[in-house]
C-alpha cells in the first residue's frame, strides 16, 4: 500500500524528466539552426565572421526581428497576420515623409495605425472572423495607403533615426545588441509578467480563460495592438537603415515573419510561442537570405528561389527533429 504510490511517483518523475529534456532540446533547436548557418558562412568566407562582417550581414536583421515579434503576438492568440509586411511598408513611407517633415502628424499617424490594429483585433473577436481573411484585406489597404503617400521611391529618414541605426558600439555589433534587447524585453513582458500568462493562455485554452472571468476581447485587442506597435518599430528601423522608402519595401516581411516565428519554436495554434526563439529565427533567416547565398556564388537571379529552398530545408529539419522527440 505504501510502496505503490512511491513507485508511480518515481516513474512519473523519470517520464517528466524525459519530457523536460525534450522540451529543452526543442528550445535549443532555433539556436542550433542559427549556429549551423553561421558555420556555413564561416566555412565559405571566414572573413565575414568579424565585427564589420556581422554589422553588414545582420544589417536588416533588426526590422525582420521586430516584424517577427509582431507576428508572434498575433500567433500567440491563435491568429495569423498576413498584413504585417505591407504594414511595415506603410510605416516606412510615413517615416520617410511625415515623420521627417511634420513629426507631430507623423507620430499621430503611427499611433493611429496601432489603434487600427487594436480595432482589427476587436473586430476579429466580436464578429468571430477568420483573421487570415481580415488581415489579407488589410494588406491591400496598407499597400494602397503606402502608394498614396509615396507614389515613387523616395523620401528621407529623420536624422535622429539615421544616427540611431548607424550607432556603432564597441566590441559587439549593434544588430546583435538590438536583438538581445528585443528578445529580453519581449520575453519578460510575455513570458514572465502575470498578464503575459493571460495573453498566452488565450491561445492555449480560451474557454478556460473565459470561465475564469478574463475578457477575451481584451486579450485579443492587446495582442493585436502589440503587433501594431512592433510593426511600427520594424518599419521605422527599416527606414533608419535604408534611409529612404518605397511602398513595396516591406512586402517580403509577411512570410519572413511567419517563418521566423515557426523557426523559433512557435506553433500556429495553442499559444506556444517563444520571443527569444522568434528573434533567433529572424536572425537565422536574415543570414540565410542574402549573405550566405552571395558567398555561395549563387547568381542573383536564383537567389529568391534558393532563399525559399533554404527556408524549406530548415523548417523541414525542425519538424523532423521535434517529431522524433514526441
Amino acid at each position, binding site marked *: 500500500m505504501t510502496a505503490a504510490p512511491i513507485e508511480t511517483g518515481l516513474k512519473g518523475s523519470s517520464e517528466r524528466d524525459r519530457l523536460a529534456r525534450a522540451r529543452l532540446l526543442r528550445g535549443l533547436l532555433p539556436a542550433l539552426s542559427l549556429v549551423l548557418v553561421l558555420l556555413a558562412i564561416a566555412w565559405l568566407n571566414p572573413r565575414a565572421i568579424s565585427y564589420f562582417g556581422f554589422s553588414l550581414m545582420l544589417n536588416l536583421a533588426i526590422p525582420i526581428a521586430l516584424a517577427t515579434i509582431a507576428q508572434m503576438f498575433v500567433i500567440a492568440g491563435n491568429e495569423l497576420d498576413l498584413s504585417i509586411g505591407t504594414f511595415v511598408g506603410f510605416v516606412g513611407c510615413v517615416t520617410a515623409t511625415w515623420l521627417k517633415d511634420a513629426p507631430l502628424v507623423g507620430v499621430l499617424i503611427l499611433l493611429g495605425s496601432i489603434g487600427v490594429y487594436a480595432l482589427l483585433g476587436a473586430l476579429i473577436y466580436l464578429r468571430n472572423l477568420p483573421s487570415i481573411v481580415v488581415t489579407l484585406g488589410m494588406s491591400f489597404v496598407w499597400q494602397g495607403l503606402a502608394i498614396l503617400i509615396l507614389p515613387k521611391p523616395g523620401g528621407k529618414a529623420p536624422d535622429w533615426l539615421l544616427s540611431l541605426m548607424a550607432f556603432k558600439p564597441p566590441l559587439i555589433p549593434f544588430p546583435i545588441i538590438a536583438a538581445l534587447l528585443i528578445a529580453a524585453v519581449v520575453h519578460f513582458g510575455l513570458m514572465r509578467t502575470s498578464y503575459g500568462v493571460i495573453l*498566452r493562455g488565450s491561445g492555449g485554452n480560451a474557454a478556460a480563460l473565459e470561465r475564469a472571468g478574463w475578457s477575451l476581447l481584451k486579450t485579443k485587442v492587446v495582442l493585436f495592438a502589440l503587433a501594431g506597435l512592433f510593426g511600427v518599430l520594424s518599419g521605422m528601423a527599416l527606414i533608419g537603415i535604408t534611409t529612404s522608402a518605397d511602398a513595396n519595401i516591406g512586402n517580403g516581411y509577411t512570410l519572413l515573419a511567419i517563418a521566423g516565428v515557426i523557426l523559433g519554436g512557435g506553433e500556429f495554434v495553442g499559444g506556444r510561442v517563444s520571443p527569444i526563439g522568434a528573434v533567433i529565427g529572424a536572425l537565422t533567416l536574415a543570414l540565410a537570405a542574402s549573405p550566405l547565398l552571395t558567398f555561395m556564388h549563387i547568381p542573383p537571379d536564383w537567389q529568391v528561389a534558393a532563399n525559399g529552398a533554404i527556408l524549406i530545408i530548415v523548417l523541414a529539419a525542425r519538424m523532423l527533429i521535434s517529431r522524433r522527440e514526441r
Partner: protein
Amino acid sequence: MPEDNTDIVGLNGAEKRFGASNMDIIRLDGAEKHFGAVRALAGVDFHVGAGECVGLVGHNGAGKSTLMHMVAGTLVPDSGRIAVRGHVEDNYSVPRSQQLGIRCVFQELSLCPNLSVAENTRINHPALRGLGWRRKAADLITAKLDEIFPGHSISASDIASDLSIGRRQMVEVARAFTVTQDPLELVILDEPTSSLDAHTAGQLLAFVRRFVATGRSCILISHVLGEVLQHADRIVVMRDGKVVASDAAKAFDRDRLVTTMGGAEAREKIAAEIATQKPETGPLRVRARPARQEDGNELVAHAGEIIGLAGLAGHGQTDLLLAIFAAAARSKTGIEVTAPVALVAGDRQSDGIFPQWSIAQNIGIRSLKRLRNGLLISPQREAELADFWRKKIGIRTPDMNNNIFSLSGGNQQKALFARALGSDAKIVLMDDPMRGVDIGTKLEVYDLVREEAGRGRTFLWYTTETEELDNCHQIYVFKNGRIVANLRRDELTEKKIIQSSFGDAA
C-alpha cells in the same frame, strides 16, 4: 434580504424547513433551460446547504452538467431564480459566482496546456500579480497539492501538456481549492475521479470530507455510485432534466439509486415486437474486437440483426464503429466485415452534412456509383433516389433541391438516414444519431430501422439513450474501450446495463 426567502420551501425530498434557506449556499428555484428544441432542464429546484456534500447522479443528458453550469454562472437559466446565501441574484455571472466563493471543476479539462502549473493557477487568481507572483502562485498550488494528494510528485513548473491526464486532473482539483482574495464556499466536482487511480481518488474523497467538515460545501458528480453513496451527505437524482429524488445518502443503496436513475416505466411496446421477430441467424456480417479488449469478448453481428452498443458516453463505442467503417475499406486485424458499410454520424453538423449542398445531393453522395451516367452524375437518377426516400422516410420539404439547411434538425437527420439506407450498404453503423431529435422523428426512424432489419440489413447502433436499446436484438455494454457485457434482448434490463457500465473498480 433574507426575509424574502423564508417562504421558499424545499419540496423535493427530505427537508421542508421554513426559514432555513439562508443557511443554503445556493438555491435554484424552477430553473429551466432550452437549447433550441431540446429541453435540458425542466423546472429544477436545487439547493446546497453549508457544510454539506451533495451527490448528484443521473444518466448522460439527464441535465446534471447544465444545472452545474448554472450554479457556476456559465449558463443563465431561461426562467427560474438563483439565490446565494439567501440573496436573490438577478445578474448572476461567472465573476459574481467567483466573488461569492463558488468554484467549479468541469468535466472537460480546463487547464491551458501551454502554461505551467503555477501559471495555470494564476489564471484563476487575479490577485496573483506584481513582483514575485510566480513564487506565490507556485507556493499556493504546491501547498494545496501536498494537502490533497500527499506524495503527488507534481512540480509547479511542469507544463500542463507534459503531465499525464490524471495529474492534470489533480492540478485542476487542487487549483479549485486554492484561496487568495475571494472566499471559498462551494466547490463543484464534476466527475473528479474519472482519470484518477484508486489511490488518488481515495485521497481526494477523504479531502472532500475534511473540507465539508469545516463548514464549506461540495457538489460531487460521479458515475461511480459507490463514491457518491459513501461520501455524500445527501444525494440528488436527475432524470430527463428533472430532479426525481433528493434524500439523505443513508436512505439510498445501490439498487435504489439505479432504479431511481433508470425510471422502470413501461416499455413493453417495442420490446414485445422485437422479441417475437427475433430473426433466425443469417450470414455473418461483422465480427469485431475493440482495440483495447483483453479478454475474448467480441462483437458479432449477423444479417438482419440490430445490435446495440451501450454504456456511458465516450467509452469506446464510437471508436469501434469507426474502426469497423475503416475495416470495410482496408482489412484490419481483429475486425471482419463481409458487406458494404454506411455510417450515420452522430454530430450531423460537423460529420454528416454538406452544408452548401441540396437535400438530394446530400442523400445521393453515398450512392454516386449507381447515379452515374458515363462520367457525370445523372440528375434524374439523383432526383429519383431523393424522391423515393422523401416519400419513404417522410422528409418534410416542398423541394428536394432546396439547401439541406432549409430542413429542421430532425428532418436533416432523416436525410442522413436516407443517405445510408438508400445506398448499397448491407451494414449500417449509427453513431448515436438521435441526439437532439424530436420524439416523433425518432419513432418514425425506429420503425424504419426495424423494417430494414427485417429485409436483412444489419444495424450497429451506438446510443446513449437506454430506451433506444429496446429496438435491439443484442446489446454490448462498453466500459473503458472494452466490451464488458453482452446481453440478449430478453435479458436486457436497465439495471443490468447500468450495473455493467457503472461497475465500480472497488
